[in-house]
């Protein structure tokens, strides 16, 4: 099992993916994120992939599935720090990540997530 650090920042769960994962490890990481978010105190999840310089169709689709699952649980989700070359490759692979919220860096991601969470509680 790959090491995966989940940090709780108030209502937000921050998950930095710090190393390249093979498919099984990536699936395990996804399950861990879902389990960790299964907590009434957590309202939003920020998944930081800025350390990854390769994201292929498997991982791209897995991230979509994780985001979808988290939203089904009533959590807001944001994907942070997609590298520019990764963004280009994902589009060429036909993965547009249209239905996922994204942010350039963690600061703006947290700000955006808090706004989304506030909007939900209105």
């Amino acid at each position: 099992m790959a090491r995966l650090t989940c940090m709780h920042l108030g209502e937000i769960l921050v998950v930095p993916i710090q190393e390249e994962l093979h498919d099984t490890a990536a699936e395990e990481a996804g399950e861990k994120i879902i389990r960790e978010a299964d907590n009434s105190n957590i309202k939003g999840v920020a998944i930081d992939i800025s350390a990854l310089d390769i994201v292929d169709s498997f991982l791209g689709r897995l991230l979509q599935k994780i985001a979808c699952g988290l939203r089904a649980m009533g959590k807001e989700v944001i994907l942070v720090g997609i590298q520019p070359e990764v963004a280009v490759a994902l589009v060429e692979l036909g993965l547009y990540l249209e239905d996922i919220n994204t942010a350039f860096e963690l600061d703006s991601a947290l700000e955006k997530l808090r706004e989304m969470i506030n909007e939900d509680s209105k």
Partner: protein
Amino acid sequence: MKEEILRIPINKEIDVLIARREIKSEAEREGFRWIDQTRIATAVSELTRNIIKHAYRGEVIVNKDDGGLEIICQDEGPGIPDVEQALERGYSTTNSLGIGLIGAKHLMDDFKIESNDSGTKITTYKKLK
């Protein structure tokens, strides 16, 4: 003149990471732009994953010539029954084999599949621009 510079066996999931990492470094040494290094590494990731998923074992070979890098992924798996169908976008969305193949095709400059019931050989090429 064509020269073989790398040959990596693909037998288990971790080999996908090893192959794409080594080939990305090689592309960097050969002077590919950063964005093309990522395109090559991503294509390698797609094609070597197909070996693990559909053929269990195979290898990736990297040849260099004056114009760029040729990357060959070959296996002794059951082959792709209908290559045309596997390459159709509509078909590929529900099929990991297809999405990997079509993705790799878009990321590389040349792409050729030879497949029969004793194996598959995919030859791709990226021009050094």
